[in-house]
């Protein structure tokens, strides 16, 4: 109970910072980066449902992200309104998620990863090669952003607040989901699938529903992305994007609420810094991946805490017993 006070305080400060951010960052470039962080955080939170709580590592989520973005972009280009385009985008993403889930949930572990990867490549291939539909490598432009209760989202600040609202909804839904009985069931299937089955749970259906939940928020993030950039191309559906979202999840720490958010911040900031100075984002991405997996498999934040703690303990132990190598 005593830990609650500081925790509420920290959450309050975070909310205050997020709400006032555009006021004290006058530069729209940085406001846009904040928008990017929040929209990618939604995607990372969505993937974390499967990776963290379900123990199912998907490398096909970029395809779900892109499916939503492309559906909206193409319908808007065909002259439909934002509401129709967005609803259709979410509907189509859920449909694709269901197909992905049916095919990939025949297995778990590495096989699940391989199948989601292969399925993701199919969708990437469609976006890349079906030129008459998707304009291939040229991508699709989205000329307008939707209006939100009459407010234009054309400026960086207005768009930031729109993303912030969606992000807040995502965080709340995740917080509810994690504590819910269904969330407990999903974690159970991650830890002891066989026992869960013997206890009366429908393990497959639990995973299937979790996949849809994850797909839903991935689609929402995809929509935010396409409205943010006002453009979508096949590149966003490539394996690299799936890997980036996964990196956000594991770098921040899986199966936590804050981890994917912190991970999204880390990856987006590094990506912007890297591409501004050295143009070698892939190299940086790969090196971080390798370092985190080799040295901090539990994620940057818990990993740093662990290394810090053990370093501190080693120091204290040395101080207590004289210098001794453990």
């Amino acid at each position: 109970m005593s830990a609650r006070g500081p925790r509420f305080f920290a959450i309050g400060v975070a909310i205050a910072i997020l709400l006032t951010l555009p006021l004290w960052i006058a530069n729209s470039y940085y406001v846009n980066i904040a928008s990017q962080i929040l929209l990618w955080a939604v995607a990372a939170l969505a993937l974390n449902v499967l990776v963290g709580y379900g123990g199912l590592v998907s490398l096909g989520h970029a395809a779900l992200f892109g499916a939503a973005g492309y559906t909206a972009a193409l319908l808007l280009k065909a002259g439909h309104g934002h509401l129709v385009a967005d609803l259709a985008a979410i509907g189509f993403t859920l449909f694709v998620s269901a197909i992905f889930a049916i095919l990939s949930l025949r297995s778990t572990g590495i096989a699940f990863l391989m199948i989601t990867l292969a399925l993701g490549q199919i969708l990437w291939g469609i976006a890349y090669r079906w030129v008459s539909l998707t304009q291939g490598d040229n991508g699709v432009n989205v000329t307008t952003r939707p209006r939100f209760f009459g407010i234009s989202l054309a400026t960086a600040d207005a768009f930031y607040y729109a993303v912030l609202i969606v992000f807040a909804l995502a965080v709340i839904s995740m917080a509810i989901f994690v504590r819910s009985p269904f969330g407990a069931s999903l974690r159970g299937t991650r830890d002891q699938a066989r026992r869960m089955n013997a206890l009366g749970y429908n393990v497959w259906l639990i995973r299937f529903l979790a996949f849809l939940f994850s797909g839903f928020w991935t689609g929402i993030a995809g929509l935010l992305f396409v409205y943010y950039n006002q453009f979508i191309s096949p590149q966003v559906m490539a394996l690299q994007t799936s890997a980036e979202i996964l990196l956000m999840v594991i770098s921040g720490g899986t199966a936590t609420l804050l981890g994917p958010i912190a991970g999204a911040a880390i990856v987006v900031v590094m990506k912007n810094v890297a591409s501004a100075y050295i143009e070698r984002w892939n190299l940086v991405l790969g090196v971080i991946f390798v370092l985190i997996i080799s040295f901090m498999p539990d994620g940057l934040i818990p990993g740093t805490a662990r290394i810090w703690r053990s370093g501190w303990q080693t120091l204290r132990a040395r101080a207590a017993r004289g210098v001794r190598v453990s």
Partner: protein
Amino acid sequence: MTALAINALCKSFGGLRVTSNVNLSVEAGERRLIIGPNGAGKTTLFNLITGELSPDSGSIELFGSDITKLASRKRAHLGVARTYQIITLFAGETILHNVSLALLGLSPLRWSFFGNLDRQHHIVESAREALAHVGLETIAARPLAQTSYGERRRVEIAMALAQKPKLLLLDEPFAGLSIDERRDVQQLLKRIPREVSIVMIEHNMDVALDFAEKVTLLHFGEVIVEGTRSDVVNDPRTREVYLGH
């Protein structure tokens, strides 16, 4: 009334017959002990009864209805619960959460996206009740990682009991326990009400003999001897299986 009726059940892995034409009939409220040396096919028989494995041939009836082809999870809803010889618990959770999960498995609440599992009073109360039965209510909030092996064995039993089963399958509940702990577990098993029919596996005859009225001896997947305690103990074939080699 017959709680469990197994007819001519067979199961092979590759060429190896692990369950060979097994017939078994357990009356409602009965305590049955299944003994046999390692590799006799005892746990396989349990896996067939719970549906974690499906048989090659034969049938399984639970209180008169055929469950041979029924999915494992549906058998749990019909009142079959089991414990595992190799402890199969949720290692990252508390004792209470483990037992709550067992209760949630049979509750429609398991599909709920809303609410907080730890605040579902009827589930938490029932879980505490089951933990009281095995004497763990005082450490219910303890993370499983901080419990002893003997305590985990009792969590296994509490999870099965929490489901209020009609048929309880206990897979070597004494395995790895000290003499004192065994006595405790024996006591708690005696307190289980007679509405529950129990089948217990034990490969060590002496530990559990006084638990059961009837004993079945399994060897190489076949029922060798079946009868009352003294019948089985005094049967020359029992002595051959246990002492012969």
